[in-house]
């Protein structure tokens, strides 16, 4: 039985080089990262702001609103920008349903729509979501206008209390139908999911809760 495999010259050099670097790293802390530190220059190009979508789903666009024009908005992510066309009758969700006038600079918008030949996306009415967010957790307690959940995905399991939207609803997770009794029908300890408006400063206001 053979217990060892022959080491090629390249392998030997690699092991030796690794050993030298590890020793230098122990003697001079941070040397390894100083010599090999990579940043976003690698593989990036200043001409990478493509107008045409390159993602897997061309019917979707998401990003921060960086410009508002008469015909729509420009959504920008760290790597790309895309024009989204909004018709005057396009319904937009921003905690409540309304017109595209609800959209402001700096908002985060997720849109589904129809890709246009000029690279823009024509938004589908009702599929424009502004500052929408999701939270999951276990119900601790609730009142008429507040809800407290734990294990909110932050990893610390701390209880978090959210103020509820004036138009919030409680639905059945399986079919989306409103639950009779609303929030009062949910027992503490039940797992719930929530969608709602992401507020400035990291806050969140649920508009729909399901269990």
């Amino acid at each position, binding site marked *: 039985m053979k217990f060892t495999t022959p080491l090629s010259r390249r392998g030997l050099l690699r092991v030796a080089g690794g050993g030298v670097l590890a020793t230098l790293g*122990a*003697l*001079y*802390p*941070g*040397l390894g*990262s*100083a*010599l090999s*530190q990579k*940043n*976003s*220059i690698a593989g*990036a190009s*200043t*001409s990478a*702001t493509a*107008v045409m979508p390159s993602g897997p789903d061309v019917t979707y666009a998401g990003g921060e609103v*960086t*410009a508002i*024009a*008469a*015909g*729509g*908005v*420009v959504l*920008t992510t760290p790597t790309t*920008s*895309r*024009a989204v*066309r909004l018709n005057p009758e396009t319904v937009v969700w921003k905690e409540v349903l309304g017109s595209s006038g609800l959209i402001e600079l700096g908002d985060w918008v997720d849109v589904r729509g*129809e*890709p*246009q*030949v*000029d*690279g*823009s996306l*024509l938004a589908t009415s009702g599929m424009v979501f502004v500052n929408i967010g999701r939270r999951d957790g276990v119900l601790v307690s609730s009142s008429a206008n507040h809800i407290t959940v734990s294990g909110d995905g932050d990893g610390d399991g701390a209880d978090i209390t959210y103020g509820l939207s004036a138009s919030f609803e409680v639905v059945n997770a399986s079919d989306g139908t409103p639950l009779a009794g609303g929030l009062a029908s949910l027992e503490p300890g039940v797992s719930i999911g929530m969608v709602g408006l992401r507020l400035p400063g990291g806050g969140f206001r649920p508009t729909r809760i399901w269990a």
Partner: protein
Amino acid sequence: MFVMLVGRIWLGSLFIYSGFMKLGSYRESRGFLAGYGLFPRWFANTGGLLIPWIELLIGGLLLVNRTQVIGSILAATAAFGFAVIGAVTLHRHLQVSCGCAGVASSDRIDVLTIIRALVMFTAAILIPFTNSTNIQSLGILVIALVAAAPAVLLTLRRNRYRRWLTTFRALQNANIEELTALLETQAPGSS
């Protein structure tokens, strides 16, 4: 003694390397002492500002033949301080970055940090008791330059990144303007 000469060169170059690395990211790394949560804020802030310069001074004193004894005393004091701070931080289970080489050393304080500080302390206290071979002036200069090289490299890379970011943002803004103009026109039809 050859071994002590090597130890002296290592210790001197380590202090110079560490000082230059902190100066290379002065704004970010001057707050590292405050991160330990062991000192009053004013002390941590002042210490954060002074430590890179003190490290450069110690490194220089260690390498220059005539001042190696005073350099080794200061180095031993600093190394002992690092070991104590590291041990207290570890004992308190604090997840604090070592900050040994400015922003380049994101490693958290661990046993290796303390061992390194103790080895530094041992090397430093042994230097005055040995007849270390003198280092020529040119040798001192070469060691200092080599020790400063990673900090210079890091600074150049950071400046390159800043220039790239400025260009990228300018192009991104131009692209946004172009798309805004596009939105002012009629959609040419669905694909």
